[in-house]
């Protein structure tokens, strides 16, 4: 049996690991268009900040590949998939045959058209290690950095560069940072906190034009710019999938077995659409744990052990400038029936937001209150009825003691981590 | 309202160099002695509430705590010492009788410590219990005057029911109510494991513990709490409690606060009702009444259970014991004045009754003088502290001993004498669920098993040293004892010679 995996991040890796668990003999090959061994993409900001070196950034050590007999081909982009003959053409000129194929090509940065962007040769996106390495090379303490996008990637980039350059300015069209996760008040509080660390924000604003050493904002303000980082967003990388004629909406369409519309071809990770259990719709949920589990599910089915992916929901754990933000589910609801509980402490810069609907927790956001957040996550994940619990979760800090004794004992003594 | 004259009995000493503010002491003190001051990040203590139970001292991970007697002194006066003065302050303030727990703490002679044991040298080999059989099994119960066989050599005498003990030790009566359910469980399980018995005390038998019946003595006391037919039939023997060494002539009082649902169901009294055991049994005003109760209980249980009678060691104990033997009791328990209690009037505890050693010797000799010693068993109770006390008790004439305080100490009691408060920090003398759970029966029972296994081993070593390989040969073997520092009267009563004789 020959297994081929396109993409060498978490979905590809977990897929390979699962295949090897089920099939000790089959041949496993991973194609990576990058020149580095697998690493955690979110780690590039830590790399840029100097918190991890290129050694430690490696996701799995060399022993992992040796022990699991996984062949990784670096610097090889999959150019074309020939599903009829079960062959993939690589950018290195070689052809790779497969019996089962996984597409785990992840996402690519979304860069909106900006006038004059070609004027700034130091324009980067911030998604791959390569990006971080390029930026690392050119920054000096004189650099003026403009970051477009006040979402997770932009802020992580800002954090990584803070203190290393002359100025950092973050520009976003939205009126607040991390608009998808934070309400405006909290966003403002965080913004003020970050501003003290010499990062300037230009919100409800955008870069209108890029000059050689400056940018002009929509409001006319002109900012010096030596380095421009485009961190507006990402989109699924469906390029390879399309060559095989696989059905693609926003992302690659898969069923619960992570099978694409083409036989023997599976897809997992940020490049696919999968079930969001909260909205009961297929969505691109570009989340690390999601990618891991989808890769694992695909790997299982590819190696003959039937397994379903149960679906997921949005969740994030983010740390920047010493702030910890943990959120999951729906935090910015459209539905008016959602009740929202908020508890905040300005002095301590903590914030707790719990969102409930129909006797269930559907989302939460915790600022600097990470402890035991996973229990909230499990309440969403397990679809727990709130009135079955020992106490009102808004009235008391969460603990396992929230569960009635039998459920608690089932969890503690029978290792049930559902 | 005036100020209280009572000063704290103890001082809590906290070594600030060692205190890590972990607050274990704060969480563990049921008397609320310790408190944490968040503002100053310091743990403070209220000396006045401290009973010196050592819970905090033992649990403090850095051993930062010590408790000592309050160093506050009154002017020297051998007669009017601090204790005497404080007791007056307390009574003047409360108008109540003084209450105490556990046994008589006053420095009366402890005769165990004035008797020494014999060992074999040359003419008689000592026996190594690790290599040779060494028997400590005893049978408690009434023995017929003699055995009869028919012409074919078949035994025709029926032996009355006996309590078979693997070692001459029993756990003495401590009621569920006065001690916790976990403490009872520990005693019951240890008795089962060791092949001995424990005693329900006067509080009835909790439904969970009927399964330990083979190792249970059920008690019938003046309050008759929890007594019904199933109860009488549940154990291996029935004990009639006529008196208690710690408080001869006094009844018992379990305050309603300790009578929760479980205790209530077990005692068959309403939740929250005080459980008052009258001073006498109101159906026993004389020896013939006792005989009637003994035989009522035997009738009720088809003569299948030995009936034991427990009395406090008082002036006329020998004659009383003789009467009890003749009234039909299968065994007599003599409880000395150092025996423990959950609560007793201090004056009674400290001033009524006589030392167990003298009482035991007198009873044994009296029954022998009357030729009936072999027909009835004698159990010695009231502060048997260790295996050598047991060996001495048996040499004086006991068949077995009861241990109460020693058993409680084994499971954590620190002899703070505060049982009556119900706030036992060790989970023993309390009914508060949160305190009760501090006594893990799994651990406690093992400690009891360890203690008595060790004692049994020590008893065997001492027996072996005397050249004896069965405890039967120690019983009443007073030649194995010698007195030290005793006057002739004491030696005569104990029936022993002075060392050197």
């Amino acid at each position, binding site marked *: 049996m020959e297994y081929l995996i396109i993409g060498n991040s978490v979905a590809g890796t977990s897929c390979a690991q699962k295949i090897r668990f089920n099939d000790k003999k089959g041949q496993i090959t991973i194609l990576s268009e990058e020149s580095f061994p697998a690493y955690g993409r979110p780690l590039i900001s830590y790399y840029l900040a100097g918190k991890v070196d290129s050694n430690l950034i490696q996701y799995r050590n060399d022993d992992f590949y040796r022990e699991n007999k996984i062949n990784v081909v670096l610097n090889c982009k999959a150019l074309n998939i020939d599903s009829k003959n079960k062959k993939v053409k690589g950018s290195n000129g070689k052809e790779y045959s497969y019996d089962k194929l996984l597409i785990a090509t992840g996402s690519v940065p979304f860069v909106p058209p900006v006038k004059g962007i070609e004027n700034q040769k130091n324009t980067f996106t911030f998604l791959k290690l390569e990006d971080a390495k390029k930026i690392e090379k050119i920054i000096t303490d004189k650099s003026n950095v403009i970051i477009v996008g006040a979402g997770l990637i932009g802020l992580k980039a800002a954090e990584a560069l803070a203190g290393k350059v002359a100025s950092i300015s973050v520009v976003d069209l939205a009126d607040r940072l991390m608009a998808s996760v934070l309400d405006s008040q909290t966003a403002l509080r965080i913004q003020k906190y970050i501003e003290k660390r010499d990062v300037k924000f230009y919100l409800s604003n955008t870069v209108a034009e890029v000059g050689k050493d400056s940018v002009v904002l929509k409001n006319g303000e002109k900012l010096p710019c030596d380095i421009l980082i485009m961190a507006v967003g990402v989109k699924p990388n469906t390029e390879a999938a399309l060559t095989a004629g696989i059905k693609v909406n926003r992302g690659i369409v898969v069923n619960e077995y992570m099978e694409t519309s083409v036989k023997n071809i599976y897809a997992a990770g940020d490049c696919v659409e999968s079930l969001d259990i909260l909205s009961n719709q297929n969505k691109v949920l570009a989340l690390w744990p999601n990618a891991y589990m989808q890769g694992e599910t695909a790997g299982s089915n590819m190696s003959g052990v039937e397994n379903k992916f149960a679906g997921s929901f949005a969740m994030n754990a983010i740390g920047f400038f010493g702030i910890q933000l943990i959120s999951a589910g729906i935090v910015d609801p459209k539905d008016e029936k959602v009740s929202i509980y908020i508890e905040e402490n300005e002095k301590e810069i903590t914030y707790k937001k719990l969102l409930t609907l129909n006797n269930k927790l559907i989302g939460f956001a915790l600022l600097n209150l990470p402890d035991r957040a996973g229990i909230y996550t499990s309440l969403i994940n397990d679809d727990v009825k709130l009135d079955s619990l020992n106490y009102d979760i808004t009235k008391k800090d969460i603990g396992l*003691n929230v569960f009635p004794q039998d459920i608690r004992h089932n969890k503690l003594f029978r*290792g049930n981590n559902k | 309202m005036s100020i209280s004259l009572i000063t704290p009995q103890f001082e809590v000493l906290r070594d600030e160099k060692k205190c890590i503010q972990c607050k274990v002491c704060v969480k563990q003190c049921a008397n609320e002695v310790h408190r944490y001051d968040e503002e100053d990040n310091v743990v403070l203590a209220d000396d006045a509430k401290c009973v010196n139970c050592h819970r905090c001292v033992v*649990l403090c991970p850095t051993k930062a705590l010590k408790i000592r007697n309050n160093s506050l002194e009154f002017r020297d006066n051998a007669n009017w010492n601090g204790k005497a003065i404080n007791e007056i302050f307390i009574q003047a303030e409360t108008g109540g009788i003084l209450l105490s727990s556990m046994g008589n703490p006053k420095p009366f002679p402890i005769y165990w410590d004035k008797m020494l044991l014999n060992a074999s040298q040359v003419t008689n080999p000592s026996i190594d219990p690790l290599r040779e059989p060494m028997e400590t099994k005893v049978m408690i119960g009434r023995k017929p005057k003699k055995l009869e066989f028919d012409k074919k050599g078949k035994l025709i005498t029926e032996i009355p029911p006996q309590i078979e003990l693997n070692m001459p030790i029993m756990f003495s009566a401590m009621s569920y109510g006065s001690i916790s359910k976990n403490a009872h469980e520990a005693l019951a399980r240890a008795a089962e494991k060791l092949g001995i018995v424990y005693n329900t005390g006067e509080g009835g038998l909790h439904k969970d513990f009927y399964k330990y019946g083979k190792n249970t003595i059920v008690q019938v006391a003046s309050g008759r709490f929890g007594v019904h037919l199933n109860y009488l039939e549940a154990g291996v023997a029935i004990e009639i409690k006529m008196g208690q060494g710690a408080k001869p002539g006094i009844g018992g009082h379990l305050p309603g606060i300790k009578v929760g649902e479980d205790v209530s169901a077990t005692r068959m009294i309403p939740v929250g009702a005080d459980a008052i055991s009258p001073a006498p049994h109101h159906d026993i005003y004389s020896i013939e009444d006792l005989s009637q109760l003994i035989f009522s209980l035997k009738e009720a249980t088809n003569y299948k259970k030995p009936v034991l009678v427990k009395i406090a060691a008082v002036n006329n104990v020998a004659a009383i014991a003789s009467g009890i033997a003749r009234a039909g009791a299968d065994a007599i328990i003599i409880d000395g004045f150092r025996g423990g209690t959950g609560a007793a009037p201090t004056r009674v505890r400290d001033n009524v009754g006589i030392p167990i050693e003298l009482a035991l010797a007198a009873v044994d000799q009296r029954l022998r003088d009357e030729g009936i010693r072999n027909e009835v068993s004698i159990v010695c109770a009231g502060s048997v502290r260790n295996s050598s006390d047991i060996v001495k008790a048996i040499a004086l004439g006991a068949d077995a001993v009861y241990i109460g305080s020693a058993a409680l100490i084994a499971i954590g009691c620190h002899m703070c004498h505060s049982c009556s408060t119900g706030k036992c920090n060790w989970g023993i003398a309390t009914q508060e*669920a*949160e305190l009760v759970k501090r006594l893990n029966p799994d651990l406690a029972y093992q400690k009891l098993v360890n203690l008595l296994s060790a004692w049994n081993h020590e008893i065997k070593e001492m027996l072996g040293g005397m050249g004896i390989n069965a405890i039967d040969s120690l019983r009443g073997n007073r030649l194995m004892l010698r007195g030290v520092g005793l006057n002739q009267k004491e030696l005569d009563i104990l029936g022993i010679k002075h060392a050197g004789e």
Partner: protein
Amino acid sequence: MKKVYAFEKNCLGCGLCEVYCKTAHSKSKDIIKTYRKENITSAIVIEEILSPKAKTYFALQCRHCADPKCVKACISGAMYKDQNGIVKNIKEKCVGCLSCVLVCPFGAVKRNKDKERKIISKCDLCIETGTPACVENCPNNALKLMDEEEVK
């Protein structure tokens, strides 16, 4: 595999497990120094259960799940399950993103309050010393190191 189990009927909530957990994971291995000089977060959570009759408690450590969510969620590869089934965190690799905290359904992974490199505090079963310090020092035998099968 053997794990630490807490028995509610015996747990007193005294907090000694935390004291000894911290000390076991300190540099000095000395309780007082651990508290005075090292700001260590214990890998244990003590929870109180509100029941009508009395407070009950239980101590909670990492369950070392058969299928650990924290390992899957870890973005750096720091969290892994070793060949003995123990879920471990390589402190050099951990970047403190707290994804593990986000997904642990027991809330048994804690953020380390220490400013040092170690960011996550979780039970490692004191594998280096043999018996877990919490089990060893529990005054009431409420914590037991037991085999999963034994517990079931």
